[in-house]
């Protein structure tokens, strides 16, 4: 897994960057979606992967013995997913309204606020 996940993250970031640079707004949305997922996976991977080692302290001990999975990055990723989800939901609604207002989903026609 340690070797596979970085490759997956790389592919996600590459696809995300490519989609972000398209003119079609829906593609841009998909691009930032992939981008934020890649970021979440990266936090997860960078903090170290381990399986079958829950961070539970034995009833008669005060500290944990031996290697264990780090729960903090999972909490961080969870927070980041929730925030990303909220922003993305807003972004989709915004793009829909922008499409209704401008009649176009082509970013090249979004020039009115630039001149």
């Amino acid at each position, binding site marked *: 897994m340690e070797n596979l996940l970085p490759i997956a993250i790389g592919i996600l970031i590459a696809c995300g960057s490519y989609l972000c640079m398209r003119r079609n707004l829906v593609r841009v949305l998909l691009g930032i979606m992939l981008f934020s997922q890649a970021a979440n996976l990266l936090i997860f991977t960078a903090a170290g992967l381990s399986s079958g080692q829950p961070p539970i302290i034995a009833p008669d001990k005060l500290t944990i013995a031996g290697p264990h999975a780090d729960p903090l990055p999972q909490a*961080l990723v969870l927070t980041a997913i929730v925030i990303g989800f909220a*922003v993305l939901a807003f972004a989709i609604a915004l*793009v829909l309204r922008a499409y209704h207002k401008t009649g176009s989903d082509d970013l090249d026609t979004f020039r*009115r*606020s*630039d001149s």
Partner: protein
Amino acid sequence: MDFQPIALPIALPLLAVGLLLCLRRAGEPVRHAINILSCVAQAVVAVILYLRVSADGVQALRSGSWPAPFGITLVADLFSAVMVLVTAVIGLGSALYAAGYGTGKFRGYFAPLYQALLLGVNGSFLTGDLFNLYVWFEVMLMSSFVLVALPGGRPQFEAAVKYLTLNFIASAFFLVGLGVLYGMTGTLNMADLSVKIAALGDNGLILSSAVLFLVAFGIKAGVFPFYFWLPSSYHVTPTPVAALFAGLLTKVGVYACARVFTLVYGGQQEFLAPLLLAIGVLTMITGVFGAASQFFIPRILSFHIISQIGYMIIGIGFFTRAALAATVFYVVHHILVKANLFLIGGVIGRRTGSQELSMTGGLYKKAPWLAILFLIPAMSLGGIPPLSGFFAKFVLVREGLAIGQGWVIAAALAVGLLTLYSMVKIWNEAFWKDAPLGDRQPDRKVPFLMLAPCVALAACTITFGIFPGVFLDVADRAAAQLTDPTAYIEAVLPSSPPSPAEP
């Protein structure tokens, strides 16, 4: 449990958001009154917090009594306290202005979003945890996205799409940097990071996380080459919102740069300094040239935000105590002056019916007092003594020459001259030339509530100019805490851990 002023700048706006959402049907005057009252309360709390920090040194609050570095710590050093204070002042000014300006387009959601924005900004200034900083950034950005989009015209939607996309990517960069840093150190508490990174020494991954943060904060601060979202989104918002954005949002990015690159990456300055200086110079130059080609007042001012951000980044890039003091002073001066210029631009627009320079004119004859009111922040932005901008630039230039960065200073002075050119352009077009429509030029009345904040902020600018010593002294003490983070680390991570909650 003794009185903790440090949590109140976060708790008060949060309370106001809840209250305002419940009172959405209560009518606009009531909502504006609550909005203003909440800002007044924040200002009072900010003053108390500032006095406490100034007298007793760095304050830290462990939320939920979890000891650092495990829980989220709120920290207020002098820089944070000053920023919270300025935020409250600008918040109050814009809230008063908004009450006079009218916010019907926001369908009752203006005041809660406004308080949510202040909540995010205050949180960013007070947190001592990098991941928590990300969360506050998102609180701030989310409310600003809605504030841009809600008035609901075509330009607003287009601007909101651009603004959202670039800031979303910035957040992703921030997260990637956090992931790398956590993987290296196993902590995200800034004081703890400072200690651990110093122990790790130079390391490729540490430097790459620093660059990721530079990109993330750079997009939010609007530095070259990431500033494109700024001049295409700020000018479509109603004036009180634009003033708040112009004053605060980019400065949160600058604050994050100053905090992270002095505290967390204190040992990586040899690598960061040339990068920051190059970015700062390019930001100043591109911003000021962008402004020179514009003829719509909010767009001119938007480009000037970018060019002024360059000065602050340069101050961070020098990494000396005097230069950081200049940055602190510059940030405060710029927040007051730039928000005021946006507000006065709105007054010009209200009187003459447009903020497009070709449609304005003749105001000097009709309202000489407005002309003088405009000249105070405009000349301050250009760096004319004895106003606040002169002392901000003077300290930066003196320090730059002292450490032998002549070319940076030459660029800074040239940009100052071009800034003056843009301000004189607004002056000529809006005040000096004859009204383009002659007698048919509209001349509407401006409500008192829109003028009062402009006068008050201009008075602040003059006070800064008359008593620069007092304010420079505060900035110098804040910079001392930035250059020597021992007090900050000691406040967050006491050598002897505090006993858990008293019985």
